[in-house]
C-alpha cells in the first residue's frame, strides 16, 4: 500500500500553481509603501585610483535623495566586508577600484528612473593604474601587486596541495605511457534569468528585514550580524521565490549592504535590483582554472598515477563560496571513477583585476573542473594507447566490490557501480554501430565523433568534522509540526531556486509519516520561522536537509508509536510501522493511522506525555554522497565551417534512491544544458585593460532551444548506504559530467588527424583552425 505522493512517484509540483499564474513572489515583485530605489555607479576601469567623486549634479537630479560613497560607509566601518573565504572585499571603495564594473557609489532615489539618472550624473575622477589581468603574469616577479592593503606584497593568495608528490613523480616516471596536457577551463557566468537584488527595510523597533535573492538566508543573517554589529534577533532575512540560483546567489554582494545602509540612512525601505550587465560584470563567476596535468598508465592500459597543477584566478579577492577548509573546493575528487594508487594535486590562488567569485555555476565546489580534467585525460591516454575509450574505462573503473572506496586523495566513496552505467549508455546509443559508422564516414572524409564521460560527483557537504563556512558547520535542518487534523507543516534551512523542494520534501515526509504529500506544507527561506541551515547549493539539499526530513519524521514516529500504543491499549513493543500506519504485530486490522494519532496527540494523549506532535532534526551527514553517471555524446562536424552539431546525447545517471523521477529528470536536463553551454558557447573574455567583452546577453550567449541537444536520459540506482533514504544529490551531476563528453566527442572526430585536445568553449573557428593546421579543411 503506497501513500499518495510518496517516494518514487512523479507527482506534479506544488509550487507550479503560483508560477504558471504569474503569482510567484520574486524580489523585484516586493513593493513596500514609501519604498526607494538604489542604483549603483560602477567603475569603467579595472584598476585605478579614485581622485574624487563629485555628487553635486547627482543630488540635483529630481527624485534623487542621497548618494552613498565609500567614505560614508567607512565611518560605520562598513567600507569593507569579509568574504566567505575570510578574505576582505570592498562594499564601496575609498581609494581604489579593482575591477571593471566595481561598485563605486550608490544613488538612492524615489524611482528606478531617477536613480538611473542620478548614477549618470555622478562624476568620478580616476587615475588609471596598470591592471593585472593574466594570473600567470600576476605571479611573475615585478608584477604590480594589486592588494595594496595586505601585508603580503604579492598577488599569490594561497597554495594548497594534497597527495604524495614524490611517490606520484616516481610512479609517473615508471609508467610505460604518460600524457601531459594543459587545459584552460575559462571563466563563465551562471546568469540565472533572474538577476540579484534585495529590498531592505527597518521597522519602528529598528528591526531589519531584507527580502533577498539568497540561497543561504540563515548564514546571511549571521554574517550581517557579525559584519554590521546588529543584534541577530533584529535581522530577518526572507528569501522569496528565486529565479534560478546555481550558486550565483550564495555570496553577499556589496549591493545588498549598500541597500541596507541606504534604508538606515533614509528611513525608507530601499529596493536594489541589478540589471543584466551589472550581474555579468560584477557577480560571482565560475571556473577560471589554468590546469597542467600529467597521467600515466602501463602499456597494457592500467592507470598508474595522476599529477595536477593549477593556477586559480580568483579576481581581486578570494570570495569563492567554498567550505572554509577547502580553498580549492572538492577539486581532489579528480581521481574520478578510477582507482589511482598515486596522485598529487596542487592549486595556487591568484589575485587579478577581475571580479571576485568562483564555483558559482551549478557545480559542487570545483567538481566540474575535476571531472572535466580526468575524463579528458582518460580519453587522451586511451587515444595514445590506441584503445577504445569505453573499453579503457571499463578496464580501469573502481570495481563494485571495492565500495565503500577510499581514494588515494582521501575521500571515502559511499557507493558506486560504474560499469553497468556505462554499458547501459552504450546500449542506448548503439555504441558499436556508431563506431562502424564512424569508420565508414572517415573513409568518405566526413567527420563524426563519439565522446564518453564516466564521472563521479561528490555532493552533500558535509560532515561537521571537516565542513564549515566561516565556522558554521554544514548541517541542515527540518522542523515538522503535525496538526490535529493530521495535516502538517514542515520547515527547512535550505532554499529552493527551482529544484522543487516544496514537492520533494513533502514526498519524503509522506513516505515516512503516511500523510499524503498534498497535506504537507513545506516552507523555506524565512529566518524568523525556519530552523537554521546552511542553505541550498552544491547539491546538498536532498543529501542533508532531505535526510533531516526523514530523521525528524522518525522522531515523530517514535512519539506517535507511544500514542498509538495508548490508543490501542497495547505495549509499544507490540506495534510495528507497516503500510504507513502502526499496527499490532500479526493483527494488521488493529492499527492507527498517523491522522488518528495526530488527533489524539492534541485531544487524548497519554497522561504524563507532552501534548502535540512535533520534531526537529539538525542532520550532520556522516559522509558526502557520490552520485555518478556515464554520458555518451555523438557529434557531426561541418568541415567547411568547423561547426559542431550534437547529434545525440545519452545521459545515464545514478543518484541513489529517487524521490520524484520527473523532477530528477528535469534537473538532469537543466544540468546537461549548462554543461553544453560551457562546452560550446560561454566564456567571459577580458581584454588587456581588464574590460569584460560581452557584458550583456547580446554577446554573452546562453543556449536557446534551437541548438540545445534533444537530451536522452536513463538511470541506474545504487543507493547511498549512509543516507536515511539512500538518496544522493543530483542537481549538478549533469553540469559536471557533460562538458568532457562533448569535448571528447569533438576530439574523437578529429583524432585521426592527430588532434588530441581542444579547450572549451569549442567555437567553430577553433575547430576550423585545427582542420586547417592539419590540412584537412
Amino acid at each position, binding site marked *: 500500500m503506497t501513500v499518495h505522493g510518496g517516494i518514487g512517484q512523479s507527482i506534479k509540483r506544488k509550487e507550479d500553481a503560483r508560477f504558471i499564474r504569474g503569482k510567484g513572489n520574486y524580489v523585484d515583485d516586493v513593493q513596500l509603501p514609501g519604498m526607494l530605489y538604489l542604483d549603483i555607479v*560602477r*567603475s*569603467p*576601469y*579595472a584598476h585605478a585610483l579614485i581622485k574624487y567623486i563629485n555628487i553635486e549634479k547627482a543630488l540635483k537630479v529630481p527624485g534623487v535623495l542621497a548618494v552613498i560613497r565609500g567614505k560614508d560607509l567607512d565611518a560605520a566601518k562598513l567600507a569593507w566586508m569579509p568574504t566567505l573565504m575570510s578574505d576582505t572585499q570592498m562594499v564601496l571603495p575609498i581609494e581604489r577600484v579593482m575591477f*571593471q*564594473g566595481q561598485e563605486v557609489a550608490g544613488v538612492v532615489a524615489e524611482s528606478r528612473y531617477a536613480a538611473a539618472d542620478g548614477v*549618470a550624473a555622478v*562624476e*568620478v*575622477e*580616476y587615475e*588609471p593604474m596598470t591592471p593585472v589581468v593574466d594570473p600567470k603574469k600576476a605571479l611573475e616577479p615585478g608584477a604590480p601587486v594589486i592588494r595594496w592593503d595586505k601585508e603580503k606584497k604579492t598577488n599569490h593568495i594561497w597554495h594548497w596541495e594534497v597527495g604524495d608528490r614524490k611517490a606520484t613523480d616516481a610512479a609517473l616516471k615508471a609508467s610505460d605511457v604518460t600524457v601531459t596536457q594543459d587545459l584552460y577551463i575559462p571563466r563563465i557566468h551562471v546568469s540565472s534569468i533572474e538577476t540579484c537584488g534585495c529590498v531592505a527595510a527597518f521597522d519602528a523597533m529598528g528591526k531589519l528585514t531584507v527580502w533577498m535573492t539568497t540561497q543561504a538566508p540563515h548564514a546571511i543573517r549571521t554574517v550581517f550580524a557579525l559584519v554590521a554589529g546588529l543584534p541577530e534577533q533584529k535581522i530577518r532575512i526572507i528569501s522569496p521565490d528565486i529565479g534560478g540560483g546555481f550558486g550565483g546567489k550564495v555570496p553577499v554582494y556589496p549591493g545588498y549592504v549598500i541597500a541596507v545602509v541606504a534604508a538606515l540612512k533614509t528611513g525608507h525601505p530601499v529596493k536594489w535590483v541589478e540589471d543584466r*550587465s551589472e550581474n555579468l*560584470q560584477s557577480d560571482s563567476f565560475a571556473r577560471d582554472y589554468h590546469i597542467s596535468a600529467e597521467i600515466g598508465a602501463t602499456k597494457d592500459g592500467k592507470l598508474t598515477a595522476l599529477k595536477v597543477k593549477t593556477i586559480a584566478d580568483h579576481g581581486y579577492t578570494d570570495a569563492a563560496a567554498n567550505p572554509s577548509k577547502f580553498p580549492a573546493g572538492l577539486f581532489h575528487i579528480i581521481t574520478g571513477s578510477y582507482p589511482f594508487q598515486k596522485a598529487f594535486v596542487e592549486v595556487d590562488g591568484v589575485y587579478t583585476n577581475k571580479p571576485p567569485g568562483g564555483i558559482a555555476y551549478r557545480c559542487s565546489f570545483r567538481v566540474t573542473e575535476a571531472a572535466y580534467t580526468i575524463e579528458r585525460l582518460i580519453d587522451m591516454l586511451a587515444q595514445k594507447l590506441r584503445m577504445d575509450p569505453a573499453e579503457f574505462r571499463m578496464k580501469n573503473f573502481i570495481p563494485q566490490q571495492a565500495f565503500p572506496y577510499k581514494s588515494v586523495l582521501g575521500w571515502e566513496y559511499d557507493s558506486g557501480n560504474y560499469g553497468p552505467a556505462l554499458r547501459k549508455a552504450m546500449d542506448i546509443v548503439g555504441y558499436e554501430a556508431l563506431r562502424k559508422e564512424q569508420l565508414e564516414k572517415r573513409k568518405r572524409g566526413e567527420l563524426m565523433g563519439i565522446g564518453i564521460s564516466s564521472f563521479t560527483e561528490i555532493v552533500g557537504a558535509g560532515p561537521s568534522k571537516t565542513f564549515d563556512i566561516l565556522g558554521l558547520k554544514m548541517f541542515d535542518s527540518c522542523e515538522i509540526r503535525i496538526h490535529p487534523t493530521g495535516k502538517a507543516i514542515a520547515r527547512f534551512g535550505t532554499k529552493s531556486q527551482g529544484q522543487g523542494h516544496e514537492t520533494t520534501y513533502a514526498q519524503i515526509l509522506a513516505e515516512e509519516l503516511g500523510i499524503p504529500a498534498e497535506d504537507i506544507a513545506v516552507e523555506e527561506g524565512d529566518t524568523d520561522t525556519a530552523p537554521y541551515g546552511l542553505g541550498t547549493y552544491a547539491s546538498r539539499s536532498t543529501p542533508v536537509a532531505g535526510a533531516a526530513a526523514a530523521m525528524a519524521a522518525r522522531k515523530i514516529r517514535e512519539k506517535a508509536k507511544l500514542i498509538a500504543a495508548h490508543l490501542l491499549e497495547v505495549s509499544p513493543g507490540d506495534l510495528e510501522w507497516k503500510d504507513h500506519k502502526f499496527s499490532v504485530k500479526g493483527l494488521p486490522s488493529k492499527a492507527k493511522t498517523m491522522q488518528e494519532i495526530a488527533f489524539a496527540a492534541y485531544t487524548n494523549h497519554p497522561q504524563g506525555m507532552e501534548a502535540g506532535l512535533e520534531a526537529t532534526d539538525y542532520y550532520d551527514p556522516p559522509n558526502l554522497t557520490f552520485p555518478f553517471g556515464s554520458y555518451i555524446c555523438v557529434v557531426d562536424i561541418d568541415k567547411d565551417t568547423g561547426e559542431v552539431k550534437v547529434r545525440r546525447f545519452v545521459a545515464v545517471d545514478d543518484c541513489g534512491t529517487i524521490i520524484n523521477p520527473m523532477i530528477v529528470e528535469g534537473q538532469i536536463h537543466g544540468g546537461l544544458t549548462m554543461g553544453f553551454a560551457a562546452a560550446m558557447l560561454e566564456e567571459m573574455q577580458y*581584454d588587456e*585593460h*581588464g*574590460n*569584460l*567583452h*560581452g*557584458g*550583456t546577453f*547580446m*554577446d554573452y550567449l546562453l543556449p536557446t532551444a534551437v541548438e540545445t541537444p534533444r537530451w536522452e536520459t536513463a538511470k541506474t540506482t545504487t543507493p547511498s548506504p549512509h543516507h536515511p533514504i539512500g538518496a544522493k544529490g543530483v542537481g549538478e551531476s549533469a553540469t559536471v559530467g557533460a562538458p568532457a563528453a562533448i569535448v571528447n566527442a569533438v576530439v574523437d572526430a578529429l583524432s585521426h588527424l592527430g588532434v588530441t585536445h581542444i579547450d572549451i568553449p569549442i567555437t567553430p573557428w577553433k575547430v576550423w583552425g585545427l582542420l586547417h593546421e592539419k590540412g584537412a579543411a
Partner: protein
Amino acid sequence: MELEGSFTVRAPKDRVWSFFMDPFALSSCISDPHAIEVVDEDHFKGWVKAGVAFIKGTFTGSATIAERVPPERARIKAHGAGMGSAFDADSTIQLSEAGNETTVRWKADVVLNGTIASMGARLLKGTIDKKTNEFFENARKKLEGG
C-alpha cells in the same frame, strides 16, 4: 589601441610647432561639437560630443602637454569620461624639416574603458581610429591652408 601616421606640409617647422602648441588651433581640428578652456599653458580642459551617427555622448576631460622639446617633439596626454566609459590618449608628435616642408610624425596610444569597451565594441569599433586620423588630417589641412 596604437595608432600612428605622418604628413608633410609646406610650412616651416616653427609654424607647425606653434600650431600644435596652440590649444585653440588644436581645438579647431576637432570636428565634433566641443569646448576647450585653458587652465595654463600646459593644461587644458573641456568637453566634446563624440560618437558615430546617433550613438554619441558628451565626454568631459582634460589634456596635458606632458613633454615639449621645441620645436621638435611634444607629448600630449588626454583623458575623457562619458557614456559610462573613459578614454585615455597618450600621443606624441615629432617634427622634422626638409627644405620648406615639415613632416609631422604622430603616434597615439588610445585606451578605451567601460561601457563602450565592454558593450559597445561591436557598435563603435573603428571610431577612435577614424576620429584620430580625422584630427590629424584637419591639422594638415589647416597648416596647408594657412
